[in-house]
């Protein structure tokens, strides 16, 4: 199963996104968060991202959702600290953090592989809010 890491500047966004995505899981997918600076401020905590990426099962890959540029910068840096094998299996999605995480939870829990999950959530149609 592909697992999911949600990185946000805001702990609330990260937690809320996890809860929203969990609702749509069809099977056990590990959804982890790294939100805020760790001392309650807005920002990103590279150590926390590292801890999460190291502890999560990476067998089938990890899809990473991030909110803004500096979260991405922190993630890119931490990723380089991991083994080459892990690096290949951890992918940042060009997808919106909330909408992407919800869809990723569905796709991953249906047993889709890393490329399939990414393809599903990186579609432009994710921006169409009138898919009711």
């Amino acid at each position, binding site marked *: 199963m592909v697992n999911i890491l949600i990185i946000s500047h805001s702990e609330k966004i990260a937690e809320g996104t996890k809860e929203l995505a969990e*609702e*749509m899981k*069809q099977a056990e997918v590990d959804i982890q968060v790294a939100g805020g600076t760790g001392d309650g401020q807005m920002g990103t905590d590279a150590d926390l991202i590292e801890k999460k990426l190291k502890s999560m099962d990476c067998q089938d890959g990890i899809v990473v959702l991030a909110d803004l540029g500096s979260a991405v910068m922190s993630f890119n840096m931490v990723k380089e600290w991991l083994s080459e094998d892990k690096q290949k299996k951890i992918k940042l999605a060009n997808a919106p953090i909330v909408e992407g995480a*919800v*869809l990723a939870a*569905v796709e991953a829990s*249906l047993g889709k592989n890393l490329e399939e999950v990414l393809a599903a959530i990186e579609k432009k149609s994710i921006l169409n809010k*009138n*898919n*009711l």
Partner: protein
Amino acid sequence: MANKTKELFLKTADVIIENKNYLTELDAAIGDGDHGVNLARGFKKLKDKLENGSFESRSEVFKLTAMTLISNVGGASGPLYGTAFLNISKVIADSRLDLEDLVEISEEAIAGIQKRGRAEAGEKTMLDTLIPASESLKESRDNNLDLDTALKNCLQAAAAGMENTIEMQATKGRASYLGERSIGHQDPGATSSYLIIETFIKNSLK
């Protein structure tokens, strides 16, 4: 008629509340697992309001139901059922209803749901119970069937419609996120629509 309608909705509320877990399980399979919770929340509130209120017309009870569901359901089914009942409240008369009236009511309900959800038949939603039920009423009317027979046929059509959602792929609502994998499960909204129709028909046949 206001009191009979009030009794009808109290009964409907009980049926929905009894089926809370069943509806929620259906939604867990292809959605976010809250359809029973959502509707039970709305219908519990409705029971309170009905029990503590007195009403002058059918229309008033339908309107209260609509507004209560809209304000309390919390999921897509809130605006959908809410708009359906609100549309009905605008046309329903206080006199005895004939088959023509029932056709109109069913069409209003469907129009309300389509206004909100922009879905058609076959998208694996509550409409797949409601549209066949409405079509059946129209057919009965066109064939001059008596009301009892018409209602029995309508209930059968609703049941068949609900069951047909099992084989459908969802293209609206959260179940559509599952794509092909939504096939093989009965739609929760189609199921709650069936329960509502069933309660309506069984209680007006008495």
